Structure formats: C-alpha cells, structure tokens
C-alpha cells in the first residue's frame, strides 16, 4: 500500500481506479467491458497487479465476486458498463444485499454532461440499485474518486457487510488529478458497533446458565464475523445443543455430537423440536427469517431469547427478544465466554441430561432417511457420496430448489466458508458463477456445484468462462426433469396440478459440456454414482459436468408447511 499511496503527478481517473484497487489489495476483478468503462479497461490492460476475469454475462460477474467473497475473507469486486451492464448486475447485487456479502461493484456511467439526457446506455444506476445496496455513490469529480473507493471498501466490509455500488461517469475516468489514497477513513454518519454492552453480556450469561432446555441457534453472521472458533468453544463449554441456519452451515462442525443439523422449513426434526421446546434460546448472527421460524405466532413459545447481532435492526424485527446484544459475533462470543468464567456458575447438569435424552428421542426419528434400495438414483445419495468422496473438504456451491436443500442436509460442513448458496434472495443460476469465484479464491481446492437442470441453465453461458480460465469445477446436476421444489409444492398444495414445472426439451448436457470444451458424463444407475464422482474428482485439470438422472418423484423431507409451527413438521 505504501508505494501506491501517493504520487506527485496527475494521473487519469481510470489510472486512479487501478491504483486504488491495488492499494486495497484487490487481486481479481470480475467484469465485462463496454463503452462507458473503456478508459478503465485500458488502464487495467496497462498494469499487471489486478487481474481481470471476463465473464459471459454481468450477472455472472457479480455472482462470481460473491462466491469469491463468501469463500474467503476478502471483498468481491465486479466491474460492468453503464445501462444494460448495470441492470444485468442487479440480481447479483440484490443477492449480495440479502446475504450480507461484502462486495464493491463498479458501474460505468455516461459522461456527466449527458446524465439525465436519456443518453445511449444510460440508466439511473444509483436510483435503481438504491433499495438493494448497503450504500452507493455517484462520483462526479475525479478528485473524489480515490476517497469514494476507499469509503466503498470500508462500508462494504465493516459492520454488517453488504454490496456497495460506485457509479463512475466516463469523463471522470478520463479527467486527471493527483493521486492520493487515504490511509484510513472516518465517516461521521457510519460507526458500526463492535463490542457488546457489558451489562447485557452479564444478563445474557445469567440467563444462559439458568436454562433447563437450552438451544443455540446460529446463522450466517457467525461465518461473516469469523466467529466459528469462538462459537465452538462457547458451545462445547456449555454442552448445549446447537443448530445452524442454511446460511450458517459450517459455523459449527456438523460432525460434532452437540450439532442437531440445520433448522427451519427443511431442517431436521430434532433441531426444530428442540427450538420449539427450548426455555432459553441463544441466537447468534441469525435474523429469525420466515423460512426458519415458520409461523411466527407459534415460534419458540416457551423461550427467553438472547440475540447477538451486529445489525441493531435485525434485533426484535420479527421476534421480540429478551436480552439483545449489539456487536460483532466474534468479540461478543469471547466476552460471553469470559462472562461464563467470571460468573463461575455451571449449567444445570441434571436438567441438561434430561433435555439431551429428549433430543435423542427426536433424533431417533431419523428424519433424513430415504429409500436406499431404489432402482432410481436418489438425489440425496449423490450428495452423500460426494461428501464421502471429498471427505467433507470440498467447497460446495448450490443453486436454488430441492437440490439446494439436499446439499444442505447431506453435505456435512465442518468448516466455515465452505458452503456457498443464495439463502435470502433465493436466486436460481448462482451456483456456477459462485463456483467460479470460489475457485479463483482457492485455486487448488475441490469446488463442487450441486445444481439442478433448471437452475444451471440460468447462467449456463459461464461454462465458457470456465473454459477460458481452465477452472476444474465439478458440476453435479441433479436432473429430475422438473422444477423440483415447485413440483413438490404443487403436489402438496395444488392437488398435483403441475403448472409449468416440467422441464420439457432439455439439452443434452453431456454434449453441451463438451461443446464448451469440458467433460460431460451422464449417470442413470445408482450403481454408477460413486464411480462417476470418483472419475470427476480424478480429472483434476478439467471441469466435469455430471448429469445425474434422478428420481423425479423425490421430495425434500422433513418439511414445515407454510403457516405451521416448528413442531408441526411433515415427516416422510
């Protein structure tokens, strides 16, 4: 940073852009060129510190940047042109907003003199993105560019992270001024809280120790806040049961005996029942989303609730809590651990033993069981085999639908940042570009994309990007020829009227993969699943597209139907 931090000669806005990214330590930008960003692309071309990945659609650029950020501890960066470049990026920006992904998205804009004139490729990017960004900026003067970029990275990565859009008119990238990148930034209107309130910590500790039927419920905030280690220490110290949300998987090791699996609509029976019967609920970095709570009127009727979150607006938004603690997950967990030590009290061992006995009864339901003797490929089996054959060490992305739930249920994540999916916005099509971003962040890792034949087609063009950059992804296409989750709801709630959920006229995915320069394998027999995955994993240099023809009638169980409480699950 020091060598790029200042300069005595004037340089162009485009060069300032590159130097600022270098100063931020940005290694890779996902993007797509166009008229309004030509100066920037020219400046990127003439330097070699920041590399650029050319996607095939701007949506792919933003999702790839998300995958990069979610799997690493760095923000993702995307660069697109004005007008359609910006509008194509919106889905990714909204996705990042819902899942609090630290992202800086640069959009080109028409020259300042033309703004508001309905110029070629003009949209009001700041206006369009406003509801789905943490913050956005329009840079009108080259002198403000470096400071704005500094602010953008600061806002995106601190507090509750999120996407920040920086809209840069073309003339600003051509104008010149002296470059000085601020070492640090202070914004009087933005001061995220880090440490928890001491009095609240003490109250929380007392409540936590008073529990007879405790439950720990943690979410994506643990991953984003790098709180996994502290969470594990905290949870083991107490001996309490723990569940993770869809976004929080890997926040606590799934193979641990205190772990009850995911909760929520397709969570485990034991996790949801333990939530329902808990007398003290410890919510950490989770936001009481409707897919988690089920019917809010029936949610945790007996529990006193402690809620730790960096975002005050997440607290008591959906569910009134008793002990709110605003702060970052990691330092607050450390304070809680210290508070437990200082308090000296111990959990009620007798009550806890009774509670665990009850939980074991719920676990005995074996709610994730599925037919092991089917002649058709069971999608759960594919995920389970992939987990086994990668020893749980792969980075796994998914799209949205049934396959996403099976991936969440059957790939057991022991580490954070390994599970990359779209939880909040539920964006079909993210899986492949997410996986690209993950592979750029972890070039040597095994990156699997668990998808379905409908989702994968939404960003299928990125197979071309994967070929250009030789990304050896493993795509597991759970192909049931249906929009599976839509079909499941139509079966349950619309008397089997399968309106528009059947995917007719599917492409030949093997040929499609080959056309893009990759390896394609179709698997139709359960007995061939293991061999195919092994073969895919053995092809270390190639992207392998595994097209599994799965049981069309398989549904995701268990399930909390809409309007029901967590204790009212449909089991198989």
């Amino acid at each position, binding site marked *: 940073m020091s060598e790029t931090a200042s300069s005595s000669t004037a340089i162009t806005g485009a060069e300032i852009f590159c130097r600022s990214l270098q100063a931020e330590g940005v290694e890779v930008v996902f993007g797509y060129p166009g008229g309004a960003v030509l100066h920037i692309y020219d400046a990127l071309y003439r330097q070699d510190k920041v590399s650029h990945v050319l996607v095939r659609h701007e949506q792919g650029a933003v999702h790839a940047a998300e995958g990069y950020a979610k799997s690493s501890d760095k923000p993702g960066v995307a660069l697109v042109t004005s007008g359609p470049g910006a509008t194509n990026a919106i889905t990714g920006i909204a996705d990042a907003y819902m899942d609090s992904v630290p992202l800086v998205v640069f959009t080109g804009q028409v020259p300042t003199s033309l703004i508001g004139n309905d110029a070629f490729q003009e949209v009001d990017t*700041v*206006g369009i993105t*406003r*509801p789905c960004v*943490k*913050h956005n900026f*329009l840079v009108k003067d080259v002198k403000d560019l470096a400071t704005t970029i500094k602010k953008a990275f600061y*806002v995106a990565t601190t507090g509750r992270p999120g996407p920040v859009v920086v809209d840069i008119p073309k003339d600003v990238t051509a104008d010149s001024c002296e470059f000085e990148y601020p070492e640090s930034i202070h*914004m*009087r*209107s*933005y001061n995220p809280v880090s440490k928890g309130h001491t009095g609240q910590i003490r109250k929380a500790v007392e409540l936590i120790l008073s529990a007879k039927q405790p439950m720990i419920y943690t979410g994506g905030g643990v991953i984003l806040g790098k709180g996994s280690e502290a969470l594990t220490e905290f949870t083991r110290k107490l001996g309490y049961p723990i569940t993770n949300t869809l976004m929080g998987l890997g926040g606590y090791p799934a193979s641990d005996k205190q772990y009850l699996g995911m909760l929520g609509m397709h969570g485990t029976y034991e996790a949801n029942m333990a939530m329902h019967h808990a007398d003290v609920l410890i919510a950490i970095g989770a936001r009481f989303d409707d897919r988690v709570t089920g019917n809010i009127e029936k949610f945790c009727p007996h529990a006193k609730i402690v809620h730790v979150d960096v*975002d*005050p*607006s997440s*607290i*008591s*938004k959906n569910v*009134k809590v008793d002990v709110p603690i605003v702060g970052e997950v990691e330092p607050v967990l450390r304070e809680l651990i210290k508070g437990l030590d200082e308090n000296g009290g111990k959990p009620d061992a007798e009550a806890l033993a009774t509670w665990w006995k009850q939980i074991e009864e719920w676990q005995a339901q074996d709610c994730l069981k599925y037919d092991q003797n089917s002649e058709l490929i069971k999608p759960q089996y594919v995920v389970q085999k992939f987990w086994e054959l990668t020893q749980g060490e792969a980075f796994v992305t998914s799209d949205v639908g049934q396959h996403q739930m099976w991936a969440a249920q059957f790939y057991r994540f022991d580490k954070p940042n390994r599970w990359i999916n779209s939880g909040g916005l539920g964006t079909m099509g993210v899986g492949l570009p997410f996986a690209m971003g993950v592979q750029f962040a972890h070039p040597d890792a095994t990156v699997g994309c668990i998808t379905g034949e409908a989702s994968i087609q939404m960003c299928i063009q990125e197979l071309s990007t994967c070929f250009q950059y030789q990304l050896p992804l493993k795509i597991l296409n759970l192909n049931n020829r249906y929009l599976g989750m839509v079909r499941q709801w139509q079966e349950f709630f619309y008397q089997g009227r399968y309106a528009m959920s059947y995917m007719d006229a599917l492409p030949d995915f093997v040929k499609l993969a080959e056309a893009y320069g990759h390896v394609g394998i179709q698997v139709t027999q359960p007995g061939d699943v293991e061999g195919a995955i092994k073969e895919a994993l053995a092809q270390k240099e190639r992207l392998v597209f595994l097209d599994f023809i799965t049981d069309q009638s398989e549904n995701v169980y268990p399930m909390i139907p809409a309007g029901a409480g967590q204790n009212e699950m449909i089991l198989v």
Partner: protein
Amino acid sequence: MRHIISVLLENEAGALSRVAGLFSARGYNIESLTVAPTDDPSLSRMTIVTSGSDEIVEQITKQLNKLIDVIKLLDMTAYPHIEREMALVKVRVPEAADREEAKRLADIFRGRIIDVTHDTYVVEITGEGSKLDAFLEALQPFPVLEVVRSGVMGIARGDVSLQI
C-alpha cells in the same frame, strides 16, 4: 400511535430519496416529511411524521439509523416538544363583507394576510396541525382556491437537542 422523528443527515444528493425509499420499500406510513439544510450547510434536518405500533416505530428508527447518510435522529414523541406547521391559503373574497369576515377569521387564528388582490387573499398561518385544520374548517363558507401546507417541523423543549 403518531410519532415525530427528526433526522440529521448528510446534505447530499440522493439522501432524501434514501429515506423516502426506505418508507415505501418497508411499507411504513409517512404522514408528512419536511427537509432543509441546517445552519451547517453540510447537514440537512428532516422531520418525519409517521404512525405505527411501538415495534414498527422501533424498526423505523433502526432502519433510518442504518442508512449510511443518517447521522443522528430523535423520536420527539418521547420528549416534551413543540411542533409547528405552516399553511398558505388562497381564498376568493370578491365581496366587501367576505373580505371583512376572512380578515376577522385570520386574526382569530393569528394568521396574517400576506397578499391581496381585488378578489383574493393569501393567508399565512402557523401552528399545530389541528389548528390549521380548524382554520381551514372555519374558512368553509369561502371558496378556497389553494392550500399549501409545509408539513410538520418539530423541536424538543429544554435541554434535549438533536445536534452532532
């Protein structure tokens, strides 16, 4: 319940639409909204009149605080405070008797006539919203041509103050 929330925010392009957008996106009520720069030209002060349950108003203040441009806010309703609104009312008063009656009403409400033509008056009146409502009600016999209301401004009494 009705709440008056005063907000100090960066006097920057787009700050107003961030607030307005927040209210529409989250379905919060907005009764009135006034905004202008303060004595410090880098700051704007906004007064929002809204209504909702305690939970909703708590969310409104949290969501407003979350906006990067918002520096500080105060829910006036929690403190003794003064609220004022101004209205400019144009009435048609062609007859001498009407003019006298309109003048008398304006005086009763401590309004001022600030523009006179041969058949119209413009009356300026300030006060709480209910007073303005009452004045407009009293003007019913006359043809009211235009009513311009400023929306509510508020300030807390005594030591409580919203400043950075």
